[in-house]
């Protein structure tokens, strides 16, 4: 093979690999990506969204909304102080899940109820999921003193 031919082989294989990678990435972006919304955005966008689209919602756990049907069937509501979304969840709640605290739930919306399959709470008293912190700041209910270390 000539030097030119070798170079062509190299370029062709590089393009093939990169092409495959781009294809995989685009394919994976279709369902590997999850949007984050606030309860208000969720209410506004419900009609426009594909059914069974996975998403994350974040906000504060409504005071007094936590109820446990039995051991691990849990229901609570998330609010951004404008709109409230009811959430159901089966499983164990994280250590730092509290009423009145920030939380992020991931799952699908079905018949007006958000069915979560994972619930994330703050990692520690300084950490709040960034999306929640941002949306709380936007709504002016951010309590700087409580979160700042």
């Amino acid at each position: 093979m000539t030097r030119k031919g070798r170079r062509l082989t190299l370029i062709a294989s590089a393009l093939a690999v990169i092409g495959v990678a781009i294809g995989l990435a685009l394919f994976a972006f279709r369902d590997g990506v999850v949007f984050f919304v606030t309860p208000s955005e969720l209410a506004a966008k419900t009609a426009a969204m594909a059914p069974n689209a996975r998403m994350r919602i974040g906000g504060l756990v409504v005071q007094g909304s936590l109820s446990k049907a039995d051991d691990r069937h849990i229901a609570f509501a998330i609010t951004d102080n404008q709109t409230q979304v009811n959430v159901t969840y089966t499983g164990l709640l994280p250590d730092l899940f509290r009423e009145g605290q920030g939380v992020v739930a991931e799952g699908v919306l079905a018949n007006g109820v958000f069915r979560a399959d994972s619930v994330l709470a703050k990692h520690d008293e300084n950490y709040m999921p960034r999306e929640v912190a941002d949306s709380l700041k936007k709504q002016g209910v951010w309590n700087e003193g409580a979160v700042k270390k």
Partner: protein
Amino acid sequence: MIVEIGHYALVLALALAIVQGVVPLAGALRRDVALMAMARPAAVMQFLLVGISFGALTYAYVVSDFSVVNVFENSHSLKPLVYKFSGVWGNHEGSMLLWVLILALFGATVAVFSHGMPDDLRALVLAVQSWIAAAFLFFVLLTSNPFARLIPAPLEGRDLNPLLQDPGLAIHPPLLYVGYVGFSITFSFAAAALISGRIDAAWARYVRPWTLAAWIFLTLGIAMGSYWAYYTLGWGGFWFWDPVENASLMPWLAGTALLHSAAVMEKRDALKIWTIFLAILAFSLSLLGTFLVRSGVLTSVHSFATDPQRGVFILAILVFFIGGSLALFAFRASALKPGGIFAPVSREGALVLNNLLLTTCCATVFVGTLYPLALEAMTGEKISVGAPFFNLTFGPLFIPIILAMPIGQMLAWKRGDFFGAAQRLVLATAIGAGGALVLYALRGGPVAAPLLSGLALYLIIGSFVEIAGRIGGRGKSLSVIIARAIGLPRSAWGTAFAHAGIGLTLFGLAATGWGVERVITARVGEPIAVGPYEVSIRSLEPRLGSNYQELVAHTSISEGGAVLAEIDPSRRSFTTRSMVRTEAGIATIGMGQVYMNLADVRADGTLDLRLYWKPYVALIWIGALIMALGGFLSLSDRRLRIGIAKRAAARASVSGQAQAAE
């Protein structure tokens, strides 16, 4: 007073770093031996000064000097002594000081162990290294001063984040930083080569031990971080495709590619432009990781207090070094002569394929990590790119790498025999395929589990086929085989072990498909089945630690009535930060682990538990240890020792001329 000495030493280190960045550079450009000679003592002195500074901060932590803001915010007089030491870098300011310390350590190491190197190359390397040190010393002193005082001094500190009060903190960050920062040396070598315009096989020889050392520590650091997350976060996950983890994976991928392309450059004087580019890329990705973790762009346990000013500062450092080196690269790259030529099917060809796939893998991780940030910055829309994305992109790209690894080992330089190599791998392939079938018959599970474990077996066996061919043979006695095995270059063993380590890790990953997970409410004494074992909590015991209270569940694990292991999972309440942390109980049985986490204790005495049986899970980290062992073996190869490089350089230039004449 000692704290002020530490602060002052840091300022002196900065001043010295600026001098060391300028004088040897001028010396190298003007060929002035005296100016170049300044680099070595300066690099050693810089390390000593940063060391004094680091020692002063450690002292403040050990004696609990709460008049230092940093100590007040992150320590407590009752904190166990080991966490007073490791707590020094369990916060933003201290961890940046550790960064700078390791940066200076690498500079000093180059200064001391570089007898065989040309004077001008050494001077340039140390000058560039010192530029990086100066930039980060500026950063520490201007935005993250760990020595700031607090008057009046509080009586008690706020304690370290309980998640960080763990032996992992003593090990993970230093290992990871040695890895991250180790690539600064390869970067400095690349920049030095570009400045001097001499880029040849000898350069690859000088730079390889440093790349290898950085790679070893990065491998260990990532593995240690993964194991720490696994046992501390309480749900048995060990890799989350979290941006912070990706930030360490990207330099690892680029560094792995660099190791392999540097081998081609060293042996065959080819891929020069590409190798230099990878050296720049690996460190750029390390800087990007530092930026992502330290700037507060991302929120995680790794980002401590955030301050936008710091983010902008690190971004400026990032732009300066990446931009500057790429500009230099663009300026010089066109002048490089292409080196030795090779057929597509050859050792070089295989290594090019390795590089192509590894950098593409790296690119997919890069896209998945930064796309959400870019999207949010541009449209305000918030998304999270999670495990499904990376499994779909990274996975399919990594499988061909694994298939090609044993084949590449067996191809000859310049022109290889693909079918010959494939023929020698028949046994490995058969064991892989057979193993997959047997595992599927025995354990079932999702199809990916037996398939990937078969692939892992193929890789583990295949990694040693080449060595077996060199030391074995028909009718050879055992003593001949042993003598040959010892006589083989250590780097050959290093390659085999590093590749087999990947296989072991892959096997551990594949076996997660056979894991059992139970979320259950139980009482004391009630037996619970998990996989092949039975778990039973014998008793609960409240205990008092130095700065926490805990409830311990004494638990035994048995199989068929015989007790195999005892574990003590617990829930700890940390008083100062009023925070709860669970300590998982983990029992290693064979290569698998029973993992138990006390999620909740209720008023009526029942316990919410997470229980896992994870077969072969320990192989994930053992594989990483074996990879690192391979790296150490390679590092100990006599060909890489300093001084030998000089003779090899002479040889390489002779063979280079021979090729040019060809």
